[in-house]
């Protein structure tokens, strides 16, 4: 069964539009129909099967983050159909939703609820989560005293323990020290080998090749490549050239 399918999905944004009544009043008097529409995702169609590990590649502004937000269902498509099958856990920016004044332990429950798992389940796995985070006694200190690496560790620890069917990973490996990064990668490999669907958003091709068997390349919102990751190199670098060329 398909885990994810995009069917002619479009996402338009209005760019630089005003946020106050004054601006919109003045704006509508002078230049009325000056629409600054950005087509961030342009007629994208693909489907991903359960258990696939797919890299979503592209340069800044290629629309890959928008595609990921659509997948995480934090935004809805302007047109087209998007189907997800199974629980989606976004590992976007770790630690989103942490409350700075609450302790690490309290935040585990908070984050778990946001990621969509029952309290009882978290209670059962709380020791594993704390062990994985390596926070030790700091788990009972308020999160505002944590370093960014510490909160990232806690965020990742919760996210990998919620047993999602579909895992979305957005450049999370940019934080934490080398040792923690290695453990994150190991853990992601375990998730993949358990047959979960993995979507890794990155612009690092080597990292993608380590994990994924298939790649999707986005360029200016359009899907330019969909195939085995070992064939991506040429498509990706040619998209680099066209990207540079248009600027």
């Amino acid at each position, binding site marked *: 069964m398909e885990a994810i399918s995009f069917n002619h999905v479009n996402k338009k944004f209005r760019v630089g539009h005003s946020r106050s009544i004054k601006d919109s009043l003045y704006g509508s008097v002078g230049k009325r129909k000056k629409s600054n529409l950005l087509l961030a995702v342009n007629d994208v169609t693909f489907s991903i099967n359960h258990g696939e590990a797919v890299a979503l590649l592209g340069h800044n502004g290629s629309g890959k983050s928008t595609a990921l937000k659509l997948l995480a269902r*934090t935004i809805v498509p302007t047109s087209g159909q998007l189907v997800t099958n199974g629980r989606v856990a*976004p590992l976007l920016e770790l630690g*989103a939703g942490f409350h*700075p004044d*609450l302790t690490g332990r309290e935040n585990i429950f908070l984050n778990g609820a946001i990621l969509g798992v*029952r309290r009882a389940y978290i209670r059962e796995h709380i020791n594993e989560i704390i062990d994985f985070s390596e926070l030790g006694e700091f788990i009972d200190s308020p999160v505002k005293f944590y370093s960014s690496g510490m909160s990232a560790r806690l965020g990742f620890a919760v996210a990998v323990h919620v047993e999602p069917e579909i895992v979305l990973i957005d450049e999370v490996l940019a934080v934490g020290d080398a040792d923690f990064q290695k453990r994150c990668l190991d853990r992601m490999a375990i998730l993949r080998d358990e047959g979960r669907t993995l979507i890794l958003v990155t612009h690092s091709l080597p990292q993608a090749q380590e994990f994924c068997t298939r790649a999707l390349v986005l360029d200016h919102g359009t899907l330019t490549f969909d195939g085995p990751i070992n064939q991506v190199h040429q498509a990706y670098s040619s998209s680099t050239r066209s990207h540079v060329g248009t600027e």
Partner: protein
Amino acid sequence: MQSVIQKHPSGVRALNLGLTFELLWVLVSRELRGRYRGSYLGWAWALVRPLVMLAIYGLIVGVVLGAAKSTPDFMIFIFVGLISWNLFASIINGSISSVMAGSSLISKASFPRILLPIAALIVALVDAMFQMAVLVLAYVIVGSWPSLGGLAYLIPAFLGLVFFGLGLGLILASINVYIRDVNFLTEVVLQVGFWLCPILYSYGLVVRGAEAYGWPVGLITQVYLLNPMASVVLGFQKALWPPASTPEGSAFSFPGLLDERLLVLVFAGLAFLALGVWTFHRLSRNFAQEL
């Protein structure tokens, strides 16, 4: 034609309602636990603001302007009005700020956005409970208690307040994401609204004032009572201000048909809440790209 379909393996969907309640609980306890953490007085702060307001208004309006002489149990009278107004104002302000403060959550995770203002409503109710406890203490000190018959007014007045307040809060909170002026406008309108409710003065004063100026009393009071919060405050006073059920208290005169007004308010409030939920639902789909 756009659609987002989300399927779950069997069993997960059945848990969704429970999960939604757990998330709501977590959001509420995050707010309640986080708020006064790190302060020495902690929860006592929840009472400081309303009590200081009460003291200031009691002193200025009651003693300096002399309203306390003509109003039995004056402090209780204004405290009841303040409690109901504070609840209304914190539901509205809480709804708006919950969505703004939840922006990092909204842009990164998918969950029913409406839980944020609902959590704010529950937090506002907890605050009101604290103030009610102080009110009970005031009854003990003053030695007069509201009548049981009068207390029945609390039910429609409370429901009307919550329905109307949450409905308005949802509409304002969702529009505010797109037009930030709403936040500031609300602040001003709430300030005006406070004086349009019989909190620091009695409803009888409106009637007598209109008479004194020779204005059409019927028209003035009808317009005055178009403000749903005016009826809510009157309902609270009828229920919780002990002299309301005594002859000297009724000299303050509550408007005729208060029972019917409150009943209409409950149903109108419910309809307004439905409008609020619908508006919020429509506008919240793209919160993540606007915040």
